[in-house]
């Protein structure tokens, strides 16, 4: 038996609900007739279109670029024609600028060939990661090339690949680790080379024994005297996959508040991002598609779908046989940290990991009430905050005074709201508190 790694403080155990899709092979969805590619896919500045309306684009061609500030270029996932430079429905904001492409179904899909990368300079590899538009596709969407060039004042010695996938329902990373083991490990090696370090630890929650077994095997085969890749099995506990908690579980180091993982000599990447790095560097393929878990009792056929960036949720629903009766809520992302969407025309972005179709039995619709001071949220918070206090401040119209309570250390994992017996919308309170406290 492997000994399991975990973070000590707080955490919760929501029902995993992964059985709906855990054993379903990644399935490639046929490209729909139209894609809507949102220009702001990542944290940082949105892209400016580099193509004009009605222009012909080739598969993998750059269609947007960041002119100023932090960001990566955007590519066309298909050959086709730019139909419009307009607005799309956005999962969090109401709408966002996008490029609409009419897909040319007759075009021959590109075939990417494996290229040698080991003989190349780290700088060269890093540039390719940037050029391929790679961002952290596990969730936050931080440009990967920036994470891979950490400030030089703290020497980095460990790369952690995040395969925890601790959100209920989602199995996209799980399937990557079962079906694309060698790519993930080789992606890790590319990142190690870019960082100029030797050691990579892959953290996987223990509810994915097949992924752990496959990754251990591949890690052994892929390790050389130059690259040391290993696997740590993690205890199943939410939010095991949060960056700070994962680093603590695996290395026992604590990242200070407001600091980057590099402060403790660590860089964290998601396993699927490692796969994307492999595609970018070893195959020369830009990031234009994404494995998305479609699950919940409200969809006729749950699946792990490989879709083109820009595919609309409504197209996915049609492909999977429509929604099932009883559907009450559609969530983009996991049930803990995701956002409810009301319009199915939302397109998939680089950071979409799941779209959940939840029925009444799968969500809690009870109204919230007063805090009864049970203190459960204190015990659940992995950051050691007092969510109840923040909620009380917000309700007392003192949201702007919550900074001393540590609102900015909260990463909105939702553990507090999950355990709250009064069903208080603590994460919404905290988001509001952050907004007001920032303005102060």
């Amino acid at each position, binding site marked *: 038996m492997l000994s399991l790694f975990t973070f000590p*403080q707080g955490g919760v155990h929501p029902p995993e609900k992964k059985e709906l899709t855990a054993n379903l092979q990644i399935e490639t969805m046929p490209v729909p007739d139209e894609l809507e590619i949102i220009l702001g896919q990542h944290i940082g500045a949105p892209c400016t279109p580099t193509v004009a309306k009605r222009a012909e684009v080739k598969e993998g061609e750059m269609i947007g670029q960041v002119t100023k500030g932090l960001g990566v270029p955007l590519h066309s996932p298909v050959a086709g024609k730019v139909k419009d430079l307009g607005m799309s429905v956005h999962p969090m904001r109401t709408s966002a600028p996008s490029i609409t492409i009419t897909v040319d179904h007759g075009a021959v899909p590109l075939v990417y060939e494996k290229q040698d990368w080991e003989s190349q300079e780290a700088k060269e590899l890093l540039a390719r990661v940037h050029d391929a538009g790679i961002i952290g596709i596990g969730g936050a969407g931080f440009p990967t090339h920036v994470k891979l060039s950490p400030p030089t004042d703290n020497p980095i010695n460990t790369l952690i690949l995040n395969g925890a996938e601790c959100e209920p329902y989602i199995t996209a990373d799980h399937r990557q680790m079962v079906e694309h083991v060698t790519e993930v490990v080789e992606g890790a090696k590319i990142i190690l080379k870019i960082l100029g370090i030797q050691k990579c630890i892959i953290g996987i929650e223990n509810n994915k024994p097949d992924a752990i077994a496959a990754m251990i095997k591949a890690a052994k085969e892929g390790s050389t005297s130059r690259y040391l890749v290993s696997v740590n099995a993690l205890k199943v506990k939410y939010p095991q996959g949060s960056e*700070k908690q994962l680093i603590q579980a695996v290395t026992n180091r*604590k*990242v*200070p*508040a*407001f*600091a980057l993982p590099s*402060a403790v000599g660590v860089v964290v990447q998601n396993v699927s991002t490692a796969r994307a790095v492999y595609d970018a560097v070893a195959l020369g393929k830009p990031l234009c598609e994404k494995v998305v878990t479609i699950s919940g009792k409200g969809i006729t056929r749950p699946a792990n779908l490989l879709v083109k960036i820009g595919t609309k949720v409504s197209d996915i629903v049609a492909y999977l046989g429509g929604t099932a009766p009883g559907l009450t809520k559609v969530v983009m992302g996991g049930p803990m940290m995701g956002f409810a969407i009301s319009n199915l025309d939302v397109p998939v972005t680089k950071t979409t990991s799941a779209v959940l179709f939840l029925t009444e039995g799968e969500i809690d619709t009870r109204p919230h*009430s*007063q*805090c*009864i*001071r*049970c*203190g459960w949220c*204190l*015990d659940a*918070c*992995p*950051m*050691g*905050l*007092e969510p*109840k206090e923040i909620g009380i401040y917000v309700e007392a119209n003192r949201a702007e005074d919550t900074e001393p309570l*540590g609102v900015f*250390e909260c990463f909105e994992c939702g553990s507090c709201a999950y355990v709250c017996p*009064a069903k208080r919308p603590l994460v919404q309170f905290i988001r509001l508190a952050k907004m007001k406290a920032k303005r102060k």
Partner: protein
Amino acid sequence: MWTVVACLVPPLIMSVFVFGIQTLLITAVSVISCVAVEAASQKMLGRAVTIKDGSAVITGMLLAFVIPPGVSPLLPILAAVMAIYIGKHILGGIGYNFFNPALLGRAFLLATFPVAMTSAWLPPLQDGAILKYLGTSIDAVSTATPLAVMKEHGAAAFTQAFGSGSSLYLNFFLGWRPGCIGETSALLILLGGLFLIYRGYTTWHIPVSVLGTIALLTWVVGGKGYFTGDPLLAVMSGGALLGAFFMANDYVTCPTNKKSQIVYGIGIGALTVLIRLKGGYPEGICYAILLMNPLSPVFDGWFKPKRFAPPLGGDK
């Protein structure tokens, strides 16, 4: 919340066996009046009515549990008004009341009906060590609770009355003895309390610190000389178990932080022993909890949860 109610049902059934059907009547009156007063207060104050959450039912049950079985069923109605309207809705409102409503109700009754509240004990119905005692020194209806006998008549009378050694402990453990409605059977209350801990509704911190302190202090200073007190009896009598598992740890009125909970529990334990030994009132835990209730926020201010990691360069 309904789980807590379920945990209180076995002691209630037990009380029917021990004291007779009137305990059920008193409890029913108490629960119904608490729920009714809750609904009425919330209506009157223009707040949302929350009787479905079960908390008024719990208050009603606990209120009945801490009054003697022989009182008039009108008493709990008065206590319910005090507990729910004044204690819960006027002094704070849901989540903000700083006194445990059930105990406030009891304290109110004790102040207004001191005779009934300290003499309306009923003897256990069935034959046992206690029954023999009933015919002897004290009038049967005004049977006093064990701690009162101990205090007023001394250890000899006590032993004579309740037996000694293992039969004494057994009577207390099972509940064959006079006392308030719900506080008699140590076994059932303990089981209910442990179940709540097992299910995660409460944690061990408050019950253990309360009971541990009572046991320790009683052992040290509760006997004739030092270190001769009877910790086991101290824990099993005077409502200590009911208070520790179902009242001291009431979410709203206890501290939220584990460390503050332990300090709070020790405070309750110490005050209980102090009141039992020096005060005029043997069932001290009721006042001990009420006295510590308003200190909860103070303790929570002392101990904050440990933040994950401070920012580099310390706090601004």
